[in-house]
């Protein structure tokens, strides 16, 4: 696998891995969380689970595309502004390349039965991938049982109330401050 141990400089390694992650990010982009966790927390230890989860919560609640937000913040975290830019370009590049081809073959692509069948399979695989991301982050997000209540609350709010993600994150912050106190 691509690795710094093979002598690749960090920016190049970052670009190539983010390119790979971008290539395999389907279904609204949540699988990027699972992929970053595997590549950079488990395999390489570039970033801690806490930091990744914080990036995800902030990236989710800022304007712009979530996947790009998360990539930029991840890159910035591991190597400042240059890596932030490299990470964003890396994760976006596969979409641009694939869509350029698709746009040219727009009509044929739309009607291709085999592509449609393969995509049913890909979409079916995306849900467990997203669940694995949530499961992987649990150990770091939850120190006390009461926090499962917050998980459940967030789940129900997002599922049933049409409210903005910023508000959800702010509600989480409010819950944290109420439980732990404003000054600790």
């Amino acid at each position, binding site marked *: 696998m691509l690795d710094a141990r093979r002598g690749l400089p960090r920016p190049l390694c970052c670009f190539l891995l983010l390119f790979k992650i971008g290539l395999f990010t389907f279904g609204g982009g949540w699988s990027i969380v699972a992929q970053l966790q595997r590549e950079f927390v488990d395999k390489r230890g570039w970033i801690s689970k806490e930091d990744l989860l914080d990036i995800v919560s902030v990236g989710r609640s800022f304007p712009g595309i979530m996947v790009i937000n998360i990539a930029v913040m991840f890159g910035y975290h591991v190597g400042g502004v240059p890596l932030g830019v490299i990470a964003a370009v890396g994760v976006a590049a596969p979409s641009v390349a694939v869509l350029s081809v698709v746009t040219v073959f727009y009509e044929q692509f739309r009607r291709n039965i085999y592509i449609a069948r393969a995509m049913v399979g890909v979409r079916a695989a995306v*849900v467990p991938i997203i669940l694995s991301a949530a499961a992987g982050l649990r150990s770091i997000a939850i120190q006390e049982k009461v926090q499962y209540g917050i998980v459940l609350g967030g789940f129900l709010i997002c599922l049933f109330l049409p409210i903005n993600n910023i508000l959800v994150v702010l509600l989480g912050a409010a819950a944290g401050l109420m439980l732990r106190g404003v000054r600790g």
Partner: protein
Amino acid sequence: MICLQLYWSYLKIGFCSFGGLSMIPFINQEMLAHHWMTMEQLSDIVAIAEMTPGSLGINCATFVGIQVAGLPGAIATTLGVMTPSLTVCMLACHFMVKFRQNRFLQNALYGVRPICIGMILAVAVPLGQANYFLNGAPLWPAVVIGAAAGALLLAKRSIPTVILAGALLGLVLVR
């Protein structure tokens, strides 16, 4: 000139939206106003964006950019839609790192982290409904593929492997 217009348009879309399908209304407004896309093309691009890697925002930006002004157009639109991430989000990250050890922030994160897991779980529900059911009836091949993907993940297979396995099983099982 047209590239500047495309950049500006997608810059607005980027700043107004919070990713995913919430971008549709903004994209719709801008595209129809400039006659860059028809309603039909817009619903097609949503389907195509779902079927190709990457987010709807980037995919849509590339599609429109190429149709309107070729590759330079695609670069302009993609940069436009990425600008909020490269500016606002980068700044936010800078401050987050700086105030890391702050007690107030720590206590807030005590609530933010679990709620973020709740958000991730909540995304899985509509996705599950859309991907495993068709008009209310279970789509058995998809259910089987989902279970197989879950098993592969538990066996610590890489995510690209799981996605490719899903695609292959889809070709074989789906009719």
